[in-house]
């Protein structure tokens, strides 16, 4: 709100517009370095590209793979990112997500839920008390057990 009020008051606003439109405006400054590249009225394409390539070679910041040769550094960066992120994470993640159900684990869980719902609808307990036929179970006799602790 305060900003809007100040802009309406006007002098700063007008000055900024004139500056942005007037490419021939000369800003008085004591430092010479920036003025050579910025204050040229119509820079040619060739000088821009040569200046920018020279600037990038001088101020090359390594990606951390090779500090002597930029090409090796860039290649190493591209290859590590490709193998780790593109292949392992992106493609690997895709394969992992859409891989068929190993050992039918998901299928078994779905079937279990369906069975539980079916039994609940019929009013049965979740699992039958005599799931295994009691006559088939062979328990050791009391003499065989003796003093063994029975932990349930």
């Amino acid at each position, binding site marked *: 709100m305060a900003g809007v009020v100040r802009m309406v008051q006007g002098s700063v606003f007008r000055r900024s517009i004139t500056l942005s439109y007037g490419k021939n405006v000369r800003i008085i400054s004591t430092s010479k370095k920036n003025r050579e590249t910025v204050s040229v009225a119509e820079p040619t394409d060739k000088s821009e590209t040569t200046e920018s390539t020279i600037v990038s070679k001088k101020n090359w*910041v390594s*990606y*951390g*793979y090779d*500090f002597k040769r930029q090409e090796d550094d860039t290649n190493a*960066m591209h290859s*590590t990112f490709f193998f780790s*992120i593109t292949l392992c994470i992106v493609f690997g993640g895709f394969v992992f997500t859409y891989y068929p159900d190993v050992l039918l684990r998901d299928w078994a869980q779905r079937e279990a839920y369906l069975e539980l719902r079916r039994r609940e609808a019929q009013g049965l307990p979740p699992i039958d008390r005599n799931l295994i036929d009691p006559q088939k179970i062979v328990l050791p006799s009391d003499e065989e057990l003796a003093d063994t602790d029975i932990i349930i």
Partner: protein
Amino acid sequence: MLLARESVFRSSYFSEFFLFMVLFLMIILFCSFGSVDLFSFYLFFEGRLVPTLFLILGWGYQPERLQAGIYLILYTLFASLPLLVGVIGVYNSSGLLCFFFLSDPCLSRVFFYFCMVFAFLVRIPLFLVHLWLPKAHVEAPISGSMILAGVLLKLGGYGLIRVMVFLVNFSFNLNFFWISISLLGGFLVRLVCLRQTDLKSLVAYSSVAHIGIVVCGIMTVNYWGFCGSYVLMIAHGLCSSGLFCLVNIVYERTGSRSLLVNRGLMCLIPRMSIWWFLLRSCNMAAPPSLNLLGEVVLFRSLVSWSWLTILMLGGLSFFGAAYTLYIYSYSQHGSFYSGIYSCSIFYVREFLLVFLHWFPLNLLILFRDVVSFWL
């Protein structure tokens, strides 16, 4: 590991031999985790000591690495010879060594149980036989530390899980011993962490504490215990390895692992602070990390085994969070060490390295059913 050890290639310090050692170690580890036979597992279990020793002795930073190498070799070999005796005993009684067909070998001696279990407990490491770990981690080069923390410790856990299957009879009577040592030891080690000034040593001791909980989980012989220990082993491997990377990144800049020098890093390398925070929060099992999943499952398994473990587990968790927050705050916040002349920015290579450690750590918790119930 190769990403982390860029300085070896820069200084051309036997870089080809280094590469060979790392690859050799990777192949041996791959074979050990893929072995179906108890004897071949033993072979690769012992075999990975040689390249590890070469890595520590050849590319470590300080003269203390000689002692560290001796500790590593003597501790592990001393404990592994009984394991060979146990393996031969299993073969004599059962006539086979394939993991899938092993059952109770009908050897009713407690000596056999100790033979089989002790090697893995020293490797994993259990509290009282953990002395080799801080030494080896501190003296090892970054690749050595990463692979030690990430994979080699997990060999012990993997071996324990494999072997527990047919040592169940002894386990019911004797495992309380290892559980109580691990819990109490983990608590004490976390107190020790609060006192550490060497960053690498701190991460090494925190490894011991985490792995103590893993050992407890395996020793309860619950399904939940096995699943939780499996998850926490994966999570700890990623987290500790990532923390070692971060410590090394700072070490390469300041030349010191001391906490008193490496402080106020948020002022110097703010981009790295977020990785410190994320990995530290994973280390103390803050959600949504895989460590949290592992610890919750393990706590459930331990408390179902005995409610008395709650006392130690509460202390463990509290002091774990305490030292983690203290270290994060001390290393990142506040003013930086005035003796630092210059500090280079956080390179893309390092960013990728730490990102690859953190990404599965915070993502795999979404695949809980796949990760934890793989067994």
